[in-house]
């Protein structure tokens, strides 16, 4: 398996909220990277996890499957997933696969963080 061409940096945005900045190519190969980022973002108090897709360059159906498994894991910890920074193309893919019904999509980081406090 080739090394995943992706980086995921975690930013803590206050009590219970974390943002994961995703840059590169989302395929099933990057699942270990995403799960490491998820663990770094989950400190036991995190209830709102925001995925920033502004740096997303490529995604295949393996990447969507990986997001479903992340969703299962987050739900198990009673965490909510949100996303922002999706281009029209990737937003359509979220809608086509109906992933948008479980991962709330926002237009900006500000609105995603506002969603966390509601």
């Amino acid at each position, binding site marked *: 398996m080739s090394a995943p*061409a992706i980086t995921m940096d975690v930013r803590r945005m206050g009590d219970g909220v974390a943002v994961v900045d995703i840059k590169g190519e989302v*395929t099933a190969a990057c*699942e270990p990277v995403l799960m490491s980022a998820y663990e770094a973002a989950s400190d036991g108090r995190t209830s709102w996890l925001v995925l920033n897709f502004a740096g997303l*360059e490529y995604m*295949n159906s*393996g990447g969507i499957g990986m997001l479903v498994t992340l969703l299962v894991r987050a739900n198990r910890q009673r965490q909510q997933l949100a996303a922002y920074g999706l281009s029209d193309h990737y937003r359509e893919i979220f809608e086509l696969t109906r992933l948008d019904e479980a991962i709330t999509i926002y237009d900006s980081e500000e609105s995603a963080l506002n969603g966390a406090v509601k």
Partner: protein
Amino acid sequence: MTETAGPDQVRSAEQIGLSAREAAAAPPPHVGPDAAQAAGPRDATSWAKKVDRLEVDARQGVRGTNVAGRRLTGPVQGFGKMWQKSYRMKAGPGIAPEQAIATWKEHFPEFWPKGNRFAGALTGINPGDVALLDLAMGGGVKLSTGVFVLYADHESFTLMTPQGHMFAGWITFSAEREGDETVVQALVLMRANDPLYEVGMTFGGHRKEDKFWTATLTALGERLGIQNPTVEAKSTCVDTKRQWRHANNVWHNSMIRSVLQTVTFQRNKQAA
């Protein structure tokens, strides 16, 4: 076959991901964000365009019911426990992954077990295509449903199910190079669509599905010229929780509807 279950069964990309081929696939060459933006996303032609409800044309050899007007359903919309199932077959060193996938796409319906019908588009398997299915359920009953081609490239393709199908989810068919040989696989990520299907899957449905895909891969292997093709099946319960909020999916249950359609057809035939 190995089977594991439990809430801690979220596993690695290879075990959980839809497509190990996609996991291994080197995406198209990196061209930099500016150039990429100008040219559009590199995966743009591989994904189907967004659809709200499925539209279908009549196809020969299948009943073609329970598909038109239906929405697509992924694992998020399903009812039952979430399963990841993989069916893997070694194809040897002489077959390139692209060759295996091209053969699979071109002859997809021919590899299905006897009694089951897959009526796809005449042009093969392309993103956005809808295929109509008649599945043998025993006792002379055919379950009429369909699938949607969600994603397709030269190394893999993914089918997604509509409302009423036995399961909500997707299946990715892929091939990848592992060491010096090619491995072909089907990967399913699914939940039973409603409580009735969940009962059915528990009492024989999973076993039947395992047989189905094992037979399909074996037929593909024979077509590819593999001697004594062997399929390794593995099931993992990714989420043991059932999504009771989706119990009313049963309204669309294609099995019930197919039985009613068969009875109505027979009565009309007798009356005529």
